[in-house]
């Protein structure tokens, strides 16, 4: 099946939506526009080469994730793989305030795995169980990490940490 068959306006829209989702997921991992673009494109082309059917969300995310982990390994970075086992913590209240300040900067201060969880949970709407199935960690650990990451964002915002001499276009394409 070709996403771009001639009668496929719907397929084209689906392709764009899925490609953008893949890119945003890659961005949640890499927190770098150019790297996220590369990851998305590599994953997409890999799936196109390997598979005979249409590209769907689950395999796309897994491929992006695997490519990202490979790139970390090549660079000798292992931080991403260590998601600590923690006990389940209570869901936070919906009355908790948001954050003020540079959210992009605050997200950049989080661990990669925590940022990934926030993306999957807040943007993709995955449940803790679905995230657990995707990345192979216990559901309780997922919930705990999500809440911890949000707490960290609030903490950063509360401190009103302004980006210290942050490069002007850190996340822009070179």
């Amino acid at each position, binding site marked *: 099946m*070709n*996403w*771009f*068959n*001639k009668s496929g306006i719907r397929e084209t829209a689906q*392709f*764009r939506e899925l*490609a*953008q989702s*893949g*890119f*945003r997921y890659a*961005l*949640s991992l890499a927190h770098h*526009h150019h790297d996220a*673009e590369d990851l*998305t*494109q590599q994953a*997409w*082309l890999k799936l*196109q080469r390997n598979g005979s059917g249409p590209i769907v969300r689950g395999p796309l995310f897994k491929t992006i994730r695997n490519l990202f982990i490979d790139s970390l390994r090549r660079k000798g970075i292992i931080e991403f793989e260590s998601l600590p086992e923690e006990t389940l913590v209570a869901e*936070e*209240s*919906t009355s*908790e*305030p*948001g*954050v003020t300040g540079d*959210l*992009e900067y605050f*997200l950049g201060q989080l661990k990669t795995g925590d940022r990934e969880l*926030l*993306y999957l*949970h*807040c*943007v993709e709407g995955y449940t803790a169980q679905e995230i657990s199935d995707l990345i192979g960690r216990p559901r309780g650990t997922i919930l705990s990490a999500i809440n911890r990451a*949000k707490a960290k*964002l*609030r903490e950063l915002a509360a401190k009103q940490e302004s980006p210290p001499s942050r490069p002007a276009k850190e996340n822009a*394409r070179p």
Partner: protein
Amino acid sequence: MNPIDTQIREYYQKQTLPEENLQAMQPPEDTPQPSQWPWLLPLAAAMIALLAIFLGKSFSLSQAVAAEIAKNHTAQLAMEISSSDYQEVAAQLDQIDFSLTPPGGVFSRQFTLIGGRYCSIQTELAAQLRVRENATGKMHTLYIIPLTDDFSALKETKHSVKGVKVQLWTEGDRFFGLASSK
């Protein structure tokens, strides 16, 4: 939804993959590929035509045989040899060079031979045997024909021709037809 969830969602939704990347990910348009087997279509058509001819021929031959058997059965011509012994009838019909033993299975128990005569089916010399159904006393006509190439192509079939039921089948090197008035 939690405000921070909304902020995170809005942040990521503002991030988009550039159009040039989308274009690069776009597979080429489907183009009609020349068939790997260009000879396949005419070959398939020829095979279908041959099959139709073969089946049509078989069907028409089967119908013709059934019609001829029904006509002979209805004529009720007198038997040249009257006997209940197949061997004796076979000995009298000495122009016939194939076996006149009855069909296999329960035929011999269900039917008793009355007599026989020469006949021809589709120009083939055949034996026409009159038999009586033991259970009902009803008279039937059994035809035994050597299995030529034409007859060997016929499947086991049942026909109804002008009030006569005709059953056709093959056993070994012989072709049989049994006609029964309804």
